[in-house]
């Protein structure tokens, strides 16, 4: 079986540059940076005080009662998914043919920490009954599956910084294998919190360029000194090309190959010769038309 072609029919994002895909993209093209010096009091003793918080608080654009049961990462995913779903034209899909693959590196960690603070300060009776669904790594996938009635599967592949990309790959594979016609896919993250700024700083993973936060994130630059902790979500709607064509959907792009490897080398360093990147044999799946 050659597999079915995978189309991208919906885009959504909420990022440090803007509350939707369009404003994020425009700001990116204009060379704007979402990185800033954290002037909040909680950040003042930290070894690194630069980060990229979301430009629009997801709590400001979601139903209040629904949002309070969601971790911030899931709230961001809900905002981006809403945009992506609308951008795709809210495809009328058989629920058993609609899937979700959305993940995160850390999951609902700020909810976890908040619940632990409550336990310590006020005792077990005060721990919220929605703590577990808020902190679990698949919280966003589960929430989106319920929101859109997706019954073909709700998955959250966990692979650190690659989780969102791997989610998109897994979603494409679901469509290609015929397990779903439409899949909501992407990543979300919300861990701009003193613990994670401290922990990533302890790994010496973070840029310390406090004098110029806007220029701190510079992957592949000779003078790079680390990454910047940010938050946000990016969601796409993937769809089999036949399904998209049948309903006359606008296609942004086709996803014609996915490669996944593990170099089994080191928890933070890539293998120097990069041979595992080249090892993939199924990239691309097919030559684009």
């Amino acid at each position, binding site marked *: 079986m050659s597999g079915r072609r995978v189309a991208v029919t919906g885009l959504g994002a909420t990022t440090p540059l803007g509350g939707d895909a369009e404003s994020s993209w425009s700001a990116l093209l204009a060379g704007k940076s979402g990185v800033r010096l954290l002037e909040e009091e909680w950040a003042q003793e930290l070894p690194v005080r630069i980060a990229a918080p979301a430009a629009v608080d997801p709590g400001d654009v979601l*139903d*209040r*009662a*629904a949002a*309070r049961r969601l971790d911030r990462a899931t709230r961001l995913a809900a905002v981006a998914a809403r945009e992506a779903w609308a951008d795709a034209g809210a495809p009328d899909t058989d629920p058993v043919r609609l899937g979700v693959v959305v993940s995160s590196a850390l999951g609902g960690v700020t909810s976890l920490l908040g619940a632990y603070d409550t336990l310590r300060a006020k005792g077990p*009776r*005060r721990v*919220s*009954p*929605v703590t577990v669904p808020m902190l679990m790594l698949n919280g966003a996938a589960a929430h989106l599956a319920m929101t859109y009635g997706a019954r073909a599967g709700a998955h959250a592949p966990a692979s650190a910084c690659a989780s969102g990309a791997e989610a998109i790959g897994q979603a494409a594979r679901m469509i290609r294998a015929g397990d779903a016609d439409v899949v909501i896919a992407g990543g979300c993250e919300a861990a701009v919190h003193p613990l994670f700024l401290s922990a990533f700083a302890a790994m010496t993973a973070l840029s310390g360029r406090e004098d110029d936060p806007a220029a701190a994130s510079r992957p592949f630059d000779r003078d790079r000194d680390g990454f910047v902790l940010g938050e946000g979500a990016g969601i796409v709607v993937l769809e089999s090309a036949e399904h998209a064509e049948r309903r006359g959907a606008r296609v942004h792009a086709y996803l014609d190959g996915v490669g996944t490897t593990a170099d089994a080398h080191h928890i933070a360093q890539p293998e120097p010769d990069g041979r595992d990147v080249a090892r993939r044999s199924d990239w691309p799946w097919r030559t684009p038309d």
Partner: protein
Amino acid sequence: MHTTDEILAAIAETVHEIAGPDIHEVQPDKSFADDLDADSLAMVEITVALEERLGVAISDAEAKNLVTVGDAVAWISAAQTGVAA
């Protein structure tokens, strides 16, 4: 001691905060689950919030019997006078 009006107001604000319906919708004849979008998890949150706010202890077993807002007003009202069993 809280009057029944104060208890109703406290319940209305708590239900609004946790489950979402408007405060004026929270009336004694309304069912938490059927009319006010309060599922079992929300009921746990509402119960704990009311304990804190009104200074009464509501056991999980007792909370299960509080079907309507009126049930809760009556039970809390009696509990604070020591009448509730």
